């Protein structure tokens, strides 16, 4: 039904969101084109901060690390999530309980996820850390870059794979039994069943899973902050952490603002992909 009076329903949201998003965003854009010495001394510098940011090796390093991290966790979490979802029982009273237990990591505060893995992986007091070191393998995530990355990846896989599995499971349970019946009669192998029966029906939920994980991993801050603090060196400093250091650590208003705008644009692009894939899916159904 077409009725522009529906705008009145949206107004409260607009009011709140203008306070929490519009005004801040305008402020950021405003800062990004000025050199600010203090409240009264400002200089319009055009796109200088953007040029500087794009040439800043630390920004580019953080961006590369970020992209690498996102690709790695997608490469592990999506296949693992699908495998776990396929291994889940489809019927019975146990299913609900298993799903709830699997969801627990998703409900833990992000900093506590960091704390849990810190306590678990530390070489001195951690179950995992002391076990690995007991095997004679040197393992210390606060000193060794590779160990830091391994711990971080294990943590993210622990934290979010269940989301992929739950989404896939809900997609799987919407496939009619008749499809499987037909496939069994044709003598299809497990792989063929997955490839030709399940995968086509899972397309939309997997798209959602991939994009949610991609975007949320792109803004990751809390877990590495607690676990490694971005170190050793800068080896686990991702975009959000670098930006935070710049914005409230050093108060570099101009460069931090230009950084924010660029960061936001990247996320906007990803978000648009998400939205288009959702809406095309909705139209297909």
């Amino acid at each position, binding site marked *: 039904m077409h*009725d522009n009076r529906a705008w009145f329903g949206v107004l409260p949201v607009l009011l709140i969101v203008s306070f929490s998003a519009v005004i801040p965003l305008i402020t950021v854009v405003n800062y990004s084109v000025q050199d600010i010495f203090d409240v009264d001394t400002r200089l319009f510098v055009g796109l200088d901060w953007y040029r500087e940011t794009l040439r800043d090796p630390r920004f580019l390093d953080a961006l590369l690390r970020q992209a690498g991290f996102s690709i790695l966790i997608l490469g592990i979490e999506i296949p693992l999530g699908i495998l776990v979802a396929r291994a889940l029982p489809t019927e019975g009273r146990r299913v609900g309980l298993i799903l709830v237990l699997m969801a627990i990591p998703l409900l833990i505060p992000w900093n506590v996820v960091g704390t849990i893995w810190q306590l678990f992986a530390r070489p001195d007091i951690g179950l995992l850390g002391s076990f690995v070191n007991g095997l004679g393998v040197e393992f210390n995530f606060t000193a060794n870059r590779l160990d830091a990355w391994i711990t971080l990846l294990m943590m993210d896989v622990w934290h979010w794979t269940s989301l992929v599995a739950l989404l896939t499971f809900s997609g799987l349970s919407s496939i009619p039994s008749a499809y499987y019946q037909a496939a069994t009669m044709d003598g299809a192998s497990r792989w063929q069943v997955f490839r030709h029966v399940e995968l086509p029906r899972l397309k939309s939920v997997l798209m*959602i899973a991939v994009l949610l994980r991609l975007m949320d991993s792109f803004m990751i801050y809390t877990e590495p902050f607690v676990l490694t603090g971005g170190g050793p060196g800068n080896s686990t400093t991702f975009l959000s952490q670098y930006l935070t250091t710049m914005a409230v650590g050093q108060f570099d208003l101009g460069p931090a603002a230009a950084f924010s705008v660029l960061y936001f644009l990247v996320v906007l692009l990803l978000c648009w992909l998400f939205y288009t894939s959702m809406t095309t899916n909705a139209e297909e159904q």
Partner: protein
Amino acid sequence: MKAIQAAKTGGGQWLLYLYGIYLALPVYWLVSLSLRSNQSIVGTTGDAGLTFANYQEIFTNPVWYTGFANSLSYVAINTVISVTVALPAAYAFSRYRFIGDKHLFFWLLTNRMAPPAVFLLPFFQLYSAVGLFDTPLAVALAHCLFTVPLSVWILEGFMSSVPRSLDEMARIDGHSLPYFFLRIFLPTIKSGIGVTVFFCFMFSWVELLLARTLTGSAAKPIVVVMTRTVSASGIDWGVLAAAGVLTIVPGLAVVWFVRKHLVKGFALGRVS
């Protein structure tokens, strides 16, 4: 039937068990550390007996329990604001077409997906300028950045699965829109509202960056207290672990009631 079952699950029970162990071990370790004294954790004494001293410390030390109280208060404020403003908006998106509706709906999503770090600088200045810095209200409003879009999207998903004939019947019966919305429509989607409340609560409860930046000493939330537990004698791992266990409790306490809608909530109402 057995063959069909096999084709469905594809075997792989062992994978499920391994995954379960992988998920459980870190949590087991957290709980077990929370029940030990710090001396026994770092190994200065051999005593490894169970103790509830860490929990006692949290419930008696004002730094810890006010941290919990602060977190709960901004989470509660945030949830009330988000769900209240999102309800009419979600109804508008679900039932009407209007100028700019698609753009607006998309733009809301971009706020849910935007990294909070991007908004850090202006938030800090904005809330300092209006005198809200270091209050629960500042954090609650800042968290609206992602909880309001989240609520609108989830509620829209639930509302759209209610047939429009319900609206039409109410109109034919002569009910006004506000009466219909409050008395007939809201009770119909009450499980959707419950799920939305749960997700607002959760995403606000787990957030650290904005909560830390917008608070000083007075409104310091539990997640911040946890990252600053270093005392002169080093970190008290036992108390830290106990605090971790306690922050998981609220989520666990309610997850069972929303179990059927968890996926829908995480997928922003886009999965049935």
